[in-house]
């Protein structure tokens, strides 16, 4: 093809992506594990557990994604800085 591929980022470290990956996976699996929450009690203000558990996950999932975002963007900045430091002509 055309000019050689110039990486936009340096090599990745495993830890931040692994941690973020686990958090994201939790946010997908927990709201979908129906047997865990398909029951009426304990009710909250008269709302059965089934309903308020799922609404609660709106907040938890957003929180998990916020942490993942911080982890991933910090690593992203480091990787971009690594390329700029080493590869600048």
């Amino acid at each position, binding site marked *: *093809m*055309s*000019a*050689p*591929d*110039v*990486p*936009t*980022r340096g090599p990745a470290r495993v830890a931040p992506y692994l941690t973020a990956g686990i958090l*994201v*996976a939790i*946010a*997908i699996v927990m*709201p*979908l*594990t*129906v*047997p865990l929450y*398909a*029951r*009426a009690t304990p*009710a909250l*203000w*008269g*709302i*059965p557990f*089934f*309903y308020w558990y*799922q*609404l609660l*996950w*709106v*907040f938890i*999932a*957003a929180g*998990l*994604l*916020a942490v*993942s*975002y911080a982890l*991933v*963007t910090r690593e*992203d900045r480091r990787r*971009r800085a690594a390329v700029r430091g080493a590869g600048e002509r």
Partner: protein
Amino acid sequence: MSAHLLSLVTGTGPDASGHRPVNWVALIIVIVLFVLVAVIGFLASRWRTEASARGLHSLDEWGLGGRGFGTWVTWFLLGGDLYTAYTFVAVPAAMWASGAVSGFFAVPYTVVLYPIVFILMSRLWSVSHRHGYVTPADFVGGRYGSRWLSLAVAVTGIVATMPYIALQLVGIRAVLTVLGLGSNSNPLMADLPLIIAFVVLAAYTYTGGLRAPALIAVVKDVLIYIAIIVAIAYLPAHFGGWGGIFDAAEKKLSATNPATGAPFGAVIPGVTGFNAYWTLALGSAMALFMYPHSITGVLATKSRNTIRRNAVYLPLYSLMLGFLALLGYVAIKAGTNPVDTNGAINAQLVVPQLFLDAFPSWFGGVALAAIAIGALVPAAIMSIAASNLFTRNIYRDFFKKDATAKHEANVSKLVSLIVKFGALVFVLGLDQSSAINFQLLGGIWILQTFPSIVAGLYTRWFNKWALLVGWAAGIAYGTITAYDVVNPATHAHFGGSIAAFPFTSTTVYIGVTAFLINALIAVVGTLVLRAFRVRDTGDATRESDFDADENDPKVAEIERSEPLLEP
């Protein structure tokens, strides 16, 4: 969103005439807000455009709003785009008619949606930014070097989007009905407000492109948040608290449906409904960002991380959707009577009717305007997305390879008018239930583009022909299986979106089964083609494209500074 809210039109027992007097106060509020929105829509073409870009002479400008939307604009735009008027009408309607499995799954669906978006969409943004891709089919075409696979993705996107636009009209129609318009004595007069609304919408989409729905979405979202916060703060207490509301819902839903001999539904799904519940949620979440209108919203953002930040903030809309769903139960307790103009019960009228019954007319008008404007935003974005697909992946790829940016924009603008006209004919000509059926199928179909698009974001391992055959198999299985689902009450085909998983009696979302068949064929097909050493080349992308950010050079710039080494 929400493809699967079936059996919305429950029993057809004749009721009182179904005539409503026109609610003038509410109607005037709706008209005033509609005019306000139309003015904003027409001014939108001047918003954030440089003098040289006036007239929006490229798809980047017209179809993607200049590719410069930041976090806030994107939050409103995607919020307005994904949480449509039809959702606002259909989710509580499904709760009202049959309970959690067909209604409340929308909440886990829109919760698990954002982790998926978080993972996938920044890679799609990066590669599209580098190469100037406007549609998902552009990416598939570039990645696999195959305009046929690209065509498959484009046609699926267009066909899945059309009935979705039509359903937005169904949402507007529900509002007009409870306002007292649309009594069926004179069909032309009954449909006239709908036609006027859509002609105005078509006009400002033509002139303003994606900027129009982006600005209007701000008005729509503010109105919707006001309506729902007020409703949730006031209504439950007014009707005796959540405990009483859930008791009333339990009583209504556990009663036996005379047409089927089974209960109408359940407040809390039983064991047999578990797999249907989570596959509906997961399958719908995987499908939503394969829809062209969602990807249009992503590609219109400014930087790689805009969409990720939005994955953190957008769930606020899901919370609102959850409360809105619960209004379906509030309506049960309130004894809302959603009788349509023909005297039949139409569950879709439940929420508009509840607002008009429980609040002063002026506030009812605000809530109804929010729903009606909520239909205009996604309808505009969907028509833009569908016309971009047509222009780039059918017209340019197959008929006019040397189309200039300006020519593309002109074609796309024109097609957006045709698309909207088609949706209007769809709703006025065909009956409402066929729009719902096609929308249901559309969700299953669009999920079949997932392997090509998502696998392509990570690997070029799959063979393009294997992907194409997998796509066809998934579409065929999904369509046939959905056709075979018969509504037990009306004996009509396309009676729902869940069916038994092959060789088991476990019922799951048809789209997920079709997706598994599709993916399996793509894997096996690729292995077979590799075993026979079938050549599969052509990939315009490079590894570094997938993590490029806004300040990284685009492909066109790279090739200018570092000319081709060798063809």
